[in-house]
């Protein structure tokens, strides 16, 4: 057995969807690795399979074939409960549409991921405020999401993603809904998080955003070209 040398290893994964009588190969025999501390962009046209790949990496979507090793663990050999624990411990998700809870304040939104990790309530508040400082929103912790701009909402989403100190941040088009200046600010923030040790995998179709990455994986019709 080969010694594991990479944080993430993708071995021969494929993902097929059945649509009526036809089978769609969203991902075809992908093989690649990602090292600890890398900033990866996954690029590809709409429908190329990049979001499917991100959901497979995020322990959300069981591949039809192949295996995904993260931190030496075979992700889809874990039990459902272990995989849920894996997500809470290892992964911070950032979505294009922010996915903030509208009736919770900024700080309460950031505290959500800690609710499932058994961190004491008092410590939750301190940790949430710490990450809000990192994203520059400590002064707006008691606002509701709709009282913030798009860029600020994305910063809250980023704060929520990093509050559990996950090694891995998965971002699906995090700047897709933002204007150019705000998008640059968000990318600078992701870059600084990467320097702090977070491995970042970001799906984007924007070539300019890939300039922040240390490496780009191109997806064309379900196949990966690193």
């Amino acid at each position: 057995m080969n010694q594991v040398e990479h944080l993430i290893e993708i071995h021969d994964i494929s993902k097929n969807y059945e649509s009526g009588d036809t089978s769609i190969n969203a991902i075809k025999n992908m093989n690649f690795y990602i090292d600890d501390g890398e900033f990866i962009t996954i690029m590809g046209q709409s429908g190329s399979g990049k979001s499917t790949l991100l959901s497979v990496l995020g322990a959300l979507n069981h591949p039809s074939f192949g295996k995904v090793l993260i931190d030496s663990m075979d992700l889809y050999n874990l039990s459902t409960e272990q995989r849920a624990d894996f997500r809470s411990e290892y992964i911070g998700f950032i979505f294009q549409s922010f996915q903030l809870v509208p009736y919770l304040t900024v700080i309460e939104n950031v505290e959500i991921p800690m609710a499932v990790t058994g961190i004491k309530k008092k410590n939750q508040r301190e940790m949430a405020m710490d990450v809000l400082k990192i994203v520059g929103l400590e002064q707006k912790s008691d606002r509701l999401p709709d009282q913030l701009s798009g860029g600020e909402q994305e910063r809250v989403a980023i704060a929520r993603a990093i509050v559990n100190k996950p090694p891995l941040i998965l971002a699906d088009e995090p700047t897709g809904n933002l204007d150019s200046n705000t998008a640059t600010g968000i990318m600078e923030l992701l870059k600084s998080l990467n320097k702090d040790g977070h491995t970042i995998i970001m799906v984007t179709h924007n070539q300019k955003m890939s300039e922040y990455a240390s490496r780009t994986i191109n997806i064309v019709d379900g196949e990966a070209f690193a």
Partner: protein
Amino acid sequence: MLYDPEKYREKREKVLGIRKRGLSFSTVASIIAGLIIFGIGFVTVPTAVSYITTRNLDDVIYKLDKDMIWKNAVVIKIEAVKGVAFLKKDKHDTRLVITFDRREADLSDFTAVFSENNLKATLLNRVNHRQRQTTLKEEEELEAT
């Protein structure tokens, strides 16, 4: 940067359940349920066992004429009767209390032994063994006060 197995060891152990984060709710609930069942069992099981083992026992009390004492040879013969659980002499050995299983022995078995030994014994009382134990306990408590 190559993979460092030590770097995320704590997270990995949490996911794989190697290191437990305190007691889970199900564990605590199981312990409490176990303690309740054990407590109920501790109170009810001895009573139930006692009832099962003594429910068919009766006590009879015999006394010999002229306050004669019971000889050991006779006591041994009665002890040998099938169904006799135990014997006890009281009141300065003038009374003999025989505890027996009513399904296996009867008074005729005892009177037969008395006849064989030319003894004239008078039956003073016959009572359920459990009921007599309760009465004795109450008497002891009354005497103590």
